């Protein structure tokens, strides 16, 4: 039996290669993501191994506010000079250095622009000497308040050299320093990854980075000769008590490296997303291939049944094929995954200035490759295998190999599964994202089953478009021949198109709602805001506000300060508005209770959705450690674009950056917008991150960010489409093979080569356009469900992305044409003679 199975496997090489390719792609992404994480992880380990060399024990404090990654950026905890003194007194401590290190030191480069990173921190801190692997390469250490040193990679990126005057933005507005030295890191590194470092003298670092002198973010301890770091660590733990974190140097280094590895998670998730889509679509492809193979071999299978093969043996023979394909695809996928992982590691390393520690093949990649490859293939082959076992022995004697089975069972189960999926989506939107994803997948499977029922009418409608020519008509008829096969081939394409249409519908609706709300509710002319950069928000000098108000034509300036905080014990956002009454006008806010006058320093105005009421007392734990309470003096009706708690000016002193990050500027009716904008830009010359934009430009800039997100989704779709194309090629190649005789006949009665190719192309296009149309319908359904589910979040109406939908439909047709190329050529080459004498 096994030999027979393997023989028949070899006889169907091409088809198996095509379906194996889908598994291969999936496996490639899964193992590629493991290889990438592994090699970058080891690179990070190497990079930070020496960052704490010479440091035996390190002390940090619990942060004032503790937020998880989902809730905001991490906030460093603060130590004081008293803590430093206490550490120094502890037995076993030879030396203790107070370190200052906080994100948000932005260097203005020689070109007047702020040196950007794509996310990693831009640290500002104090120069503590050549410790922790830092090595002064050029110049001297900073010794005066106006002196700084920077790491070599940053100096290069900024285009600055020793002796230059350099502008630096911190929690304070721009200040100019003299660059007195440039440093690197042990191992001849110019930077530790993409992180940049600006180091000041201690008091300046404390003031600029932490807001106050006498504060540290960590204390590095060198133990006295012979003292065990672990013992010293424990001694420090007892001495300092609660609220402190004491680690040995190696523990801390590992913690830092693991922090960076977490950042890699995003890449991992993207790759695993690719893998998921590839495998999900791949299942359709494999399922189809095996169904076709089983259908074609009905006679052969029936014959073996007649000769005494058991049902178990029938199932076994199909599964053995699946295992062989799965194994081969896994091996090749693993190899390809290694390549992809290595390539991405190289790219990532050169892009982020990480020195690659070498690419390895982690065991996890191997295990996951085989697990995924085998499991997916076997799952996809099980249904056809069971069908194979049900072939009655008498089928061997019947002329018609595969009678057209009714679609009722398929349609009913498809409808039920679709309903379950829709239910999960509806429930999941409100409750649980994963439940929603499960619903989406279930719905896909349901629609795929339903699509067999839809195929016939859909194909006949679609086909009318092509029926003007004889090849077109023949192609249409061919695609209507086997609705199951057409349906499952189209379903593969449906998945990708549905996903992207759904996301597009949500994004378009959200954008339209936002733009609608802005047009309706926003009545100011200009917005001053920072270019979206990760980490701390870009800010500008608050002392400019009075001068901004004096710009001719400006009637009001309403500036906002903001920072993270714990509000009544929960992570939240504190913002302060310098002219709330102006904001009330600009955003057409209406009072619900109390007054909307400017809140006093210890007062707060809340929106009606906040759960707070007039006169409530709200306690706030600010990010820099300050703890305060505020009384609610007003409640306003939350608008579509303006909401949240607006605190009195007293909240500013609790913020890490006591600078405004945004301002709304109202102009008088007859003001010259261009002139006002010029004057404002001139005032903001020392804040190169800030932009002055009108509402449309501001929204366009925001849209550009969502556009990037959409692009990523479309890349995902591209992969799904690639696999769908394989499926279409597979189905068509098979149709051509099965119909050799017919093709020969058609050629014999005068069908030209081009016409033959056109016929196959139409057949492909009908399938892919059907898939695309189905995808559009499902996608619109998904998108609409989500938009309706998010109605509370301000998504007022469902706006369909018609333009994109049109593009996807055309794309569907184009995909059909591409998929048809090879099968069409093969069909056109049909040798008339061979075809008619073919047995």
């Amino acid at each position, binding site marked *: 039996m096994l030999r027979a199975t393997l023989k028949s496997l070899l006889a169907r090489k091409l088809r198996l290669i095509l379906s194996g390719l889908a598994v291969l792609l999936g496996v490639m992404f899964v193992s590629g993501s493991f290889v990438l994480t592994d090699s970058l992880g080891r690179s990070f380990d190497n990079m930070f191994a020496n960052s704490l060399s010479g440091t035996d024990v390190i002390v940090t404090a619990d942060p004032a506010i503790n937020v998880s990654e989902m809730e905001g950026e991490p906030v460093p905890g603060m130590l004081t000079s008293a803590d430093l003194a206490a550490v120094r007194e502890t037995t076993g401590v030879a030396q203790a250095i107070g370190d200052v290190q906080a994100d948000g030191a932005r260097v203005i480069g020689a070109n007047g622009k702020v040196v950007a990173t794509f996310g990693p921190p831009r640290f500002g801190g104090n120069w503590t000497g050549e410790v922790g692997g830092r090595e002064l390469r050029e110049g001297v250490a900073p010794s005066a308040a106006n002196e700084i040193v920077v790491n070599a990679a940053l100096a290069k990126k900024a285009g600055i050299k020793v002796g230059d005057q350099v502008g630096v933005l911190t929690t304070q507005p721009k200040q100019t320093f003299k660059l007195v030295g440039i440093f690197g890191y042990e191992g001849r590194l110019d930077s530790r990854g993409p992180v940049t470092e600006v180091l000041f003298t201690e008091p300046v670092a404390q003031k600029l980075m932490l807001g106050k002198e006498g504060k540290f973010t960590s204390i590095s301890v060198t133990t006295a000769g012979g003292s065990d770091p672990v013992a010293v660590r424990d001694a420090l733990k007892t001495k300092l008590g609660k609220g402190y974190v004491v680690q040995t140097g190696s523990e801390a280094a590992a913690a830092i490296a693991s922090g960076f590895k977490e950042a890699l998670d995003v890449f991992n998730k993207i790759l695993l997303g690719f893998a998921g889509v590839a495998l999900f679509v791949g299942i359709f492809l494999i399922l189809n291939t095996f169904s076709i193979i089983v259908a074609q071999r009905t006679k052969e299978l029936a014959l073996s049944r007649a000769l005494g093969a058991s049902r178990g043996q029938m199932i076994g023979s199909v599964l053995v094929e699946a295992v062989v394909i799965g194994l081969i695809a896994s091996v090749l996928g693993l190899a390809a995954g290694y390549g992809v992982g290595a390539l991405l590691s190289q790219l990532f390393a050169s892009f982020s200035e990480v020195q690659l520690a070498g690419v390895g093949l982690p065991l996890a990649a191997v295990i996951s490759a085989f697990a995924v490859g085998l499991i997916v293939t076997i799952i996809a082959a099980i249904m056809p295998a069971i069908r194979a076992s049900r072939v009655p022995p008498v089928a061997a004697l019947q002329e018609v190999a595969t009678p057209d089975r009714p679609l009722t069972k398929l349609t009913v189960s498809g409808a039920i599964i679709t309903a379950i999926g829709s239910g999960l989506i509806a429930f999941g939107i409100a409750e649980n994202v994963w439940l929603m994803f499960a619903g989406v997948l279930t719905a896909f499977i349901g629609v795929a089953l339903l699509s067999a029922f839809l195929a016939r009418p859909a194909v006949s409608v679609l086909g009318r478009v092509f029926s003007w020519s004889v090849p077109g008509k023949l192609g249409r008829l061919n695609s209507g021949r086997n609705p199951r096969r057409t349906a499952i081939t189209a379903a593969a394409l449906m998945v990708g198109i549905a996903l992207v249409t759904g996301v597009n519908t949500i994004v378009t609706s959200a954008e339209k709602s936002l733009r609608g709300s802005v047009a309706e509710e926003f009545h100011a002319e200009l917005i001053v805001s920072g270019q979206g950069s990760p980490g701390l928000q870009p800010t500008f000098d608050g002392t400019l506000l009075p001068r901004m108000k004096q710009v001719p034509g400006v009637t009001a300036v309403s500036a906002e300060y903001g920072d993270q905080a714990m509000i009544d014990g929960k992570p939240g956002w504190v913002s302060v508005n310098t002219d709330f009454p102006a904001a009330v006008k600009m955003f057409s806010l209406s009072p619900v209770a109390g007054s909307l006058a400017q809140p006093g320093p210890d007062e707060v105005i809340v929106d009606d959705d906040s759960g707070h009421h007039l006169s409530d007392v709200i306690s706030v734990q600010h990010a820099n450690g300050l703890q305060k309470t505020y009384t609610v003096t007003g409640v306003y009706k939350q608008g579509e674009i303006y909401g949240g708690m607006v605190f009195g000016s007293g909240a500013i002193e609790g913020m890490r950056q006591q600078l405004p990050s945004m301002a709304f500027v109202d102009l008088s009716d007859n003001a010259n917008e261009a002139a006002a904008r010029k004057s404002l830009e001139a005032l903001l010359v020392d804040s190169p991150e800030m932009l002055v934009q009108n509402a449309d430009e501001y929204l366009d800039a925001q849209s550009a960010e969502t556009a990037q997100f959409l692009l990523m989704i479309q890349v995902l779709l591209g992969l799904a489409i690639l696999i769908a194309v394989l499926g279409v090629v597979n189905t068509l190649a098979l149709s051509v093979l099965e119909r050799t005789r017919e093709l020969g006949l058609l050629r014999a009665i*005068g069908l030209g080569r081009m016409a033959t190719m056109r016929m196959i192309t139409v057949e492909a296009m009908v399938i892919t356009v059907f898939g695309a149309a189905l995808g559009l319908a499902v996608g619109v359904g998904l998108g609409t469900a989500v938009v309706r589910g998010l109605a509370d979040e301000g998504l007022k109406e469902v706006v369909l992305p018609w333009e994109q939908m049109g593009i996807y439909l055309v794309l569907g047709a184009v995909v059909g044409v591409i998929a048809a190329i090879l099968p069409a050529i093969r069909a056109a080459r049909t040798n008339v003679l061979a075809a*008619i004498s073919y047995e």
Partner: protein
Amino acid sequence: MTMTPAARAVEVWKVYGTGEAQVQALRGVSAEFERGKYTAIMGPSGSGKSTLMHCLAGLDTVNAGTVYIGETQVTGLGDAGLTKLRREKVGFIFQQFNLLPTLTAAENITLPLAIAGRQPDKAWYDTVILTVGLGDRLHHRPSELSGGQQQRVACARALVSRPEVIFADEPTGNLDSRSGTDVLNFLRDSVRQHGQTIVMVTHDPNAASYADRVVFLADGEIVDEILSPTADSVLDRMKKLDRNA
């Protein structure tokens, strides 16, 4: 000026394979097929009947010699030329699998015209349809027709574009004798009444007796021919050939 024959082979050689396995399927065959005549080709199995027909129809290439359909030299034509030839000058009837399963009988009949982008001549179409005698089954798919009905549809399809010559390779080979008779009558009528030229390969002396002339092949050569054959005269000649072989 004498009328050119509908199809003509001049010193045609066809060799399959090389070396040891070489088979000379046709060894310098020359033959003419007169217009408006019904010719049967007979001979023992493997004598080269199908090969000759395929070469005449431009379905296969020849190693040497020339083939003409009407005025057109078939040998040497490219794919486009051959396609044009098949559209305009040649009709085919095969032993089986003559029809597209997705089209109705009527659609199958007009398919060659549709492919060529020509309108059927209404009067001629009606005549052909009448002769097929399918009646209301004309709008059924091939799978709903009997084997004999299917073959008659194939004949009608070959006739409807009025080709210079129709080639039929054992058109009755798969039919019972009654259905076979129907088809043979149909073919003879189209020759007698409408001046169609038909070349038919057959094994059946009775089928050959419907023809105007029978050509005998043996070992890739034309060895004999009979005009106005009867089943008995054909059978007689066949027996002689078999004895020689």
